[in-house]
């Protein structure tokens, strides 16, 4: 009875005037084309704004028809993304964005399907699905917002939290080793892998463009700060210095070389690996042909 009927949070969107005018220069770039009228509910200063910025730019450049765009997400702060994109959106359940997005694409291959979610959503509860979307090579673009923390549930450890970090569920430091999601995706034999960070939306923009153009499953792991619940691991301060461009001469067609980069301990900004094996729909066409022959 203490939860009074207050003004609804995050309800029918109000385009706050000040923000709108502040965004007018953005609008002149046509960026608002892919922004919905709902204002993001993320904390001011969250890295997710940078990722969104890069993404809207990429979509703007590729000029994807809005009504053919579907953004599927799981649950988490990152999962709120579909509300902020001007297209069709599906804010689903925790950890299951990939199977749902796969179903969307398999049933309606003409759609452009984007899948977004946090590190907990993707590598914790949803971790079992990644290998299999990769095996099928479903033509999805999957962006992981990796802040190495559970943001929405207020700061618990995630699979990418460094060992020993104090979080709300690990007051004496975590006991688990973190995973290396780039290496794992390569071991799964992903057909497109890029890494990047929220502090450089322009590079993200170029990465996202490549990923969206890739026919098959593309995975982009974006490191991003949770300014509210992580004050030690990923912060804006030391962030920029951690990332470097992909070494010149790196052959993105060489998976062993990509794995080398992934275990180097360094953080790269760009595409680590890409090949052009047939995507799911192409494979299905072959099966359909065989089946009727």
């Amino acid at each position: 009875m203490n939860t009074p009927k207050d003004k609804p949070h995050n309800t029918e969107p109000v385009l706050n005037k000040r923000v709108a005018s502040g965004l007018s220069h953005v609008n002149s770039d046509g960026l608002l084309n892919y922004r919905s009228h709902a204002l993001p509910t993320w904390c001011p200063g969250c890295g997710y704004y940078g990722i969104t910025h890069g993404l809207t730019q990429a979509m703007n450049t590729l000029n994807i028809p809005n009504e053919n765009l579907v953004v599927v997400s799981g649950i988490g702060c990152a999962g709120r993304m579909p509300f902020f994109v001007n297209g069709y959106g599906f804010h689903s359940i925790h950890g299951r964005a990939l199977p749902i997005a796969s179903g969307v694409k398999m049933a309606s291959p003409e759609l452009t399907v984007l899948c977004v979610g946090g590190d907990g959503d993707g590598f914790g509860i949803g971790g079992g699905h990644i290998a299999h979307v990769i095996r099928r090579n479903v033509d999805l673009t999957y962006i992981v917002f990796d802040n190495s923390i559970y943001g929405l549930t207020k700061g618990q450890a995630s699979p990418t939290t460094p060992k020993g970090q104090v979080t709300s569920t690990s007051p004496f430091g975590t006991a688990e080793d973190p995973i290396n999601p780039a290496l794992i995706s390569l071991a799964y034999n992903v057909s497109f892998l890029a890494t990047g960070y929220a502090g450089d939306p322009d590079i993200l923009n170029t990465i996202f463009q490549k990923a969206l153009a890739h026919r098959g499953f593309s995975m982009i792991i974006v490191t991003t700060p949770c300014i509210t619940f992580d004050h030690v691991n990923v912060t804006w301060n030391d962030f920029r210095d951690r990332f470097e461009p992909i070494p010149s001469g790196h052959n993105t067609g060489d998976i062993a070389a990509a794995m080398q980069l992934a275990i180097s301990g360094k953080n790269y900004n760009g595409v680590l690996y890409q090949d052009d094996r047939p995507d799911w729909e192409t494979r299905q066409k072959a099966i359909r042909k065989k089946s009727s022959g």
Partner: protein
Amino acid sequence: MKQTDSLVIKICGSAGDGAISAVEILNRACALMGFHIMNFDSYPAEIRGFGKSVGHTRISRTPLLTPGRYADCLVALNDMHAITELKRIKPDAALVYDSRPPDYIEEDCAVAGFIEPGMSGYGVPLRELSAQAVKSARSRNIVALGAIAAMYNLDPEAFIEAINIRFARKSAVVREINSAALKMGYEYIRNHRERPVHKTLLAVKRHDRPIRIVNGNEAAAIGALDAGLTLYAGYPITPATKIMEYLAKKLPPKNGTVVQTEDEIAAIGHVVGAGYTGKRAMTATSGPGLCLMTEMLNLAVQAEIACVVINSMRGGPSTGLPTKTEQADLNLALYGGSGDSPRVVLAPANVPECYIMTRRAFEIAEAFQTPVILLLDFFLSNRFEDVDETVLETFEPGMFKRLTAEPVSGKPFERFRVTDNGVSPAAFPGMPGLKHAITGLEHTPRGFPNYEGDNHRAMTEKRRRKFIELQNAWPHPDVTGPKGQLSIGVLSWGSSIGAVREALASPELKGLSIGGCFPRLLQPLQTEPLKLFANRCDRLVVVELNSSGQLAGLIEQTTHKKAMRLADVPAEPPAVEQIVRYLTGVLK
């Protein structure tokens, strides 16, 4: 020589003896002659090669409700296994056995030693005749079929036709030598016995329409195909796997996709994703898999997405009895979800209904934007019935129709508009002017997250309201028996309905003041007709294959009347005899 309306035949052997395939030919031959059949085999539970296989079929002039329990004729292709089947034969049964068994069968292991007074032994040199016909003992099963044809006055030509169908893809030689084996068995009985005929099955007219012999799994799969399935996503699990295996062959030629997912969560995830784009998608599973799907089904309820799930029940709980039948997942289907999470639950009673209700399930799912769970069970999934093709062809689609939105310029689209009947016009990705986002969070009519009480209440009510229309439009439960006040009203559901109807028609109960009521739509339950029925009954009895009386509880909630429970978990289909006995007991 007795005349009979229906005949139960069991052919028993080790895996590899051809018991099951002999019954397949027998079914086909009988269907060609115009008989109805109902066939429910039993396989060994383990994979290893030496378990017992029992082909069990019932042949009848009139449509069948159950495959029967006790055999008129037991064929022993393996004596050791046949001995264990002797408790499931009639006192006057015929036993077909190898009259010249190989030496290594020990005396006390020969089934012929168990022939009791009243029974008729039909010794046939199965092995020898087979060797004569096909140069090996492999066609003993076919020789036995020939004997059956002679013993029941059945036209051997129909058997030969059935053999030709069965071996259509083999060489002409195979067809010929097997036909020869059949004739040898037939002639052997005719020539070596004074009274070759054991019982006469009253003759019937041949069907003038094409007949298919299908089981519940196939019927449901064909229903899905005919409904225009786009995507099937599934994970193997007994007894549902065959649905996926069937569709894996038949869906790709129709431009659809079958995907075997990494688990059941992914399976229902794919289905929900496809449903969200407006396409018809389905999965099939059994209890343990349905458990894993509950969270996603809840999402489909909250986000109002059409999807169809077949759950073929097996013994439980947990891994339970994977190859035995049971009806204990009703509660899970009705209530397996957090929050107020209404979903439609349908339970077909026989094979043709598996077809019809699967097709209808897609319409319901789309029209009411909801998950629909179809409850089959091991028995229904695996029992074969003759199905008149016209049943399939005369299905009339369009009982329920999807409401699609039109963009109205200047007005934001309300995907979840609160309407009188709870149904909001839907829109799908690709449609211009109707873009929106959906969510598993509670949301406003436009789909934005909202946590206010008034909105939540309105949306919760909206989601429940959708089912009132369905409740009204769906045909009322079958009600059988005398009009007026009844001593007992018997309710049942799913594959148990057949046994109950057969019991009510039995000589022991016929004419008594007992009625039956058989709902197919289990959620939303059709309250009014059920109350009407209950009010006519002094006592209610609910027959089902589970131990707590899951439908019984639902009936009590709905009618506020005590329901007696004939709720049993025999690990096999319900026995007509048990139902008769129980009801007789209640009347006393």
